[in-house]
């Protein structure tokens, strides 16, 4: 079966940057947050793709081109981290992250943990980071655990 991945053609957007932003906005509205919604690519491969796409027939000066590339890259790259919401409290394991000011690791910690509905707080599968009391310093961010290697 042919999977339709796009129906548009060239010329729908005035510039490549507009097209890129439009594509990112369109997909972003889906609010997807499973690890299967993300893919990992080599940064240099993605840069190569974007470089070819934003290069006009004439060559920008180096700085302008670099800025365009950085902007294009920023549009494409996503962070799997999201602020804690109701979905995060479904009892499944997540990567969770929080911030404790007196934590030796510059405040930011990441562990694998889950919401414990019976007790109403977060619990970790590992040793808790120093200074982290889940009842008092709950995580602020969560991200899916990556898909396992094949």
């Amino acid at each position, binding site marked *: 079966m*042919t*999977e*339709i*991945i*796009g*129906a*548009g*053609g*060239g*010329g729908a957007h005035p510039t490549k940057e507009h*097209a*890129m932003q439009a*594509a*990112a906005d*369109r*997909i*972003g509205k*889906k609010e*997807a947050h499973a690890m*299967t*919604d*993300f*893919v*990992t*690519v*080599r*940064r*240099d*491969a*993605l840069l190569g*793709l974007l470089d*070819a*796409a934003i290069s006009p027939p004439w060559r920008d000066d180096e700085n302008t081109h670099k800025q365009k590339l950085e902007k294009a*890259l920023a549009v*494409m*790259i*996503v*962070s*799997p*981290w999201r602020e804690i919401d109701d979905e995060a409290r479904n009892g499944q394991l997540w*990567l969770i*992250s929080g911030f404790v000011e007196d934590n030796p690791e510059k405040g*930011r910690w*990441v*562990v*694998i943990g889950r919401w414990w509905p019976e007790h109403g707080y977060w619990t970790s*599968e*590992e040793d808790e980071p120093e200074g982290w009391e889940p009842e008092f310093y709950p995580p602020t*961010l969560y*991200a899916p*655990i*990556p898909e*396992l*290697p*094949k």
Partner: protein
Amino acid sequence: MTEFVTVRRDALRQFIYDELREQEWGVDSAEKEAKRRFAAMIVSPWQPIETAPRDGTKILVFHPDMGVEITEWYEITQTNYVELEGGLYRKERAIFYAGWNNNGHHATHWQPLPEPPK
């Protein structure tokens, strides 16, 4: 070290497809080619454990029996005293024990932790 980035699956596929369409590829051939190019770009972020950083950086590791864990390389050092001539000694730091935290010593693969937003 090779740097990896995370992108939205659909956004990347759509972008490749749009690029091909802009180069005047037909709808069917653009879809086919976009799929091929998309598949060629994707890599697994999991790398052999032998290549994991041993500098104390926290990483994600995987083992078929334990699943995914966070671990880090740690080293316990001790001081050895090496005897010199004339009854003198020189202090030497030596690694007494080194290994992965948690079950990391069983891990087969690793990948960096996703960087939290600043």
